[in-house]
C-alpha cells in the first residue's frame, strides 16, 4: 500500500513539475505547481511527517500560491508576449547539466546506500516527526532559530511595504 501511494504521489509530483515548465500559460503553470505542492505534502504524510504535510498544504499550496497568482495577474503577461529563449545551445547545455547533476546525486546516494554505513540505514524512530517532537525541538534546542524567524518576518513585512507603497522618485 505504501509503495502504491508513493508511486501515485511521485508521479503526480514529477508530472506536475514537468507541466510547470512546459505549459505556456502562466496560470496553468501555477496550477500545476499547486499539484506538485499537494503531491509533496502526500509524500511527507507517507513518511509520517504529518505536521510538515499540513504546513505544506496550508503555507505552500495555500498562501504562497496565492502570491504566485497575484504576481501573474499583476504583471498580466499576454501569452503572445512570452518569448522562449531562442538560444538553442544554452537550452541543451542547461538540460544536459541539469541531468548530469541529477545523475551525480543519484550515484552518490546509491553509493552511500551500498556502503551501508550511512545513517540512511538507521531505523526511523517511532515518534519520528511527530508534532510533539518538532515542538520540543523548536522551543528548546532550536530556540534561537525560532526567535530569529520573527526577525526575518519583521524585515519581510517592512520590506514589502517599502517596495509596494509610495511612488518612486523619478522614472529613468
Amino acid at each position, binding site marked *: 500500500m505504501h509503495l502504491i501511494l508513493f508511486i501515485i504521489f511521485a508521479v503526480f509530483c514529477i508530472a506536475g513539475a514537468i507541466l510547470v515548465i512546459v505549459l505556456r500559460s502562466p496560470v496553468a503553470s501555477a496550477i500545476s505547481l499547486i499539484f506538485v505542492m499537494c503531491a509533496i505534502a502526500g509524500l511527507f504524510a507517507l513518511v509520517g511527517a504529518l505536521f510538515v504535510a499540513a504546513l505544506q498544504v496550508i503555507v505552500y499550496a495555500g498562501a504562497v500560491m496565492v502570491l504566485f497568482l497575484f504576481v501573474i495577474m499583476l504583471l498580466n503577461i499576454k501569452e503572445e508576449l512570452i518569448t522562449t529563449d531562442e538560444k538553442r545551445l544554452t537550452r541543451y547545455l542547461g538540460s544536459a547539466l541539469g541531468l548530469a547533476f541529477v545523475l*551525480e546525486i543519484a550515484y552518490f546516494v546509491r553509493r552511500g546506500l551500498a556502503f551501508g554505513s550511512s545513517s540512511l540505514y538507521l531505523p526511523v524512530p517511532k515518534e519520528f516527526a511527530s508534532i510533539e517532537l518538532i515542538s520540543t525541538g523548536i522551543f528548546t534546542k532550536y530556540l534561537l532559530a525560532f526567535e*530569529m524567524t520573527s526577525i526575518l518576518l519583521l524585515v519581510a513585512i*517592512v520590506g514589502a511595504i517599502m517596495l509596494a507603497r509610495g511612488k518612486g*522618485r523619478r522614472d529613468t
Partner: protein
Amino acid sequence: MISLPIINFSVIYPEIIILVTAIAVLIADLFIKGDRRAPISLIALAGIIMAAFAIHAQWGANVSGFSGAIIVDNYALLFKYIFLVGALLTLFLSVWYLQREELFSGEYFFFILISIVGMMILSSSNELITAFLGLEIMSIPLYLLAGFDKGKLRSNEAALKYLLMGAFASGFLIYGIAFIYGSMGTTNFDEIVRALSSDSLDTDPLILIGISMIVIGFAFKTAFVPFHSWVPDVYTGAPTPVTAFFSIAPKAAGFAILFRLLTVAFSPIFVNLSTMLWVLAVLTMSVGNLIALTQRNIKRMLAYSSIAHAGYILVSLAIGTSKGTEAGLFYLLAYTAMNAGAFGMVILLGHKGEDDLTISSYGGLSRRHPVAAATMSLFMFSLAGIPPTAGFIGKFNIFSNAISAGFIWLAIIGVINSVISVYYYLRVIITMYMKPEADSVTTVTYPPSLLVAIILAAWGTLHIGLFPNGWLLFIRESVVGLYQAL
C-alpha cells in the same frame, strides 16, 4: 516535563543591542516626519558604538549558548568588529548621499542594522540551521537595499537579480544542509568534527555532496567565480553606499562562516576540499581581474575588482592552516578599509542621479581637486597592492603563507593576477593626473559626514600598511582559539 535548554543570553548581547537599535530606528521613522528625520542616523550610530562596547567586553571569552547553536570566541568577535566598522563606514557614506538623492528614510538604516544582526549571528553560529537563518536575515535586507532607489530602473533590476540569485543560492545551501543532516544526524559543528574521520568521504559519499552544496550556497554570497554573475549588475545598479556595504560586510560574513565551517568543522576531510577551493580561487582571481580590465564604469570596475579580491582571500582559505586563516582575516581587514574608501571617493565625485560614472569623467581631477585625486590614488594603490599601503602587506602575507604551505602554483597565479590588476587601478590614477579635463565639470563639495568616512578609511589603509605588527598580533589573538580544540 521537558528539560529546558541552557540559554546563556549573554552570548548574544551585541546582536540584541543592534536589533533593539534597529527597531528603535524603525519606530522613530514612524513618528518623525519629513525633514526632521536626520537624527535617526544618530540613533543607529549610538547603537553601533554600544554594540562595539559589548563586543569589547566579551573579548577573550569562549562560551557557547542556546544548546550549542552560538559560540562566542575571539574569531567571531573579530568579525563582529569588522561588520560594525563596515556599518559605521556605510553610515557615514550614506547620510549625505541619501539627502543628495532624496532617499533619506529610517528604513534604510533599519535594513543596514538588521543585516548586521544576521552577519553577527552568521559569524558566531556553531550550527548549520542557525547559520542558514543568519544568512537569510543578512540577505533579505540586502535585496531590499539594492532596490532602495525605487524610481530607478537599474536599482530595481539590481534588487530583482540579487533576490533571484540569492534565493537560488539559499536553495543549494539548505539542500546541502539536508544532506549533511541526513548522513550525519547532526548540524552542530562540534558534533560534526567529532563524527568525521579522514576516510569519511569514502564510507559516506553523501557528505561530499552536502558540503559542496553548502560551499556553493555561501559562494554566491561571497561572489566566487562561477557564482558571480549577479555581481556587476547589482553593484552598478544599487545606490553607491549600498554597493560599498555589499562589497565589505556580506563578503566578510561569508568568509567568517566558510573559514569556521571548512577549516574547523570539516577539518578531518579538509584535504579533500582543498582542491575544490584551489580551483575556485584561481577562477575567481583570474576572471575577476581579466574582466575588470575592460570596464569603463568605475562601479563596474570595482565590482569585478571585489570579485578578484575575494579570490585572494580564497587562496588563504585553500591553505587551511591557522596561518592561512590569519592572512585571510588580515586581508579582509585591509580590504574593508581600502574598498570603503574607494567607494567613498566615488560618492564624493558623483553627481546627483549618478548618470555618468565612467572612469574618463575623472579626467584632469588632479588640477582642480588635488586632495581628492591624491586620496583616490591612495585607495587605488592599496587595491593594486603597492607599498606602503594595507593592500601590499595583505597580499604579501597571503602569498608568502601559500608558498610556505606548499601552494606554490597558487601563489604564482595570485602574483600574476595582482600584476594584471595594477593596470586597471593605475588607469584611474593616470586619468586623474594625465588626461585632459572631462567635459562635465565635476563640482566637488565636501560634506563632513562623508569626509569622516573617507578619512577613517584612509587612516586604516595607511596605518595597516605602515604599522602592520599590531594588527597582525590582534588577528593572531583572535584566530588562536579557533584551532585550539583540534
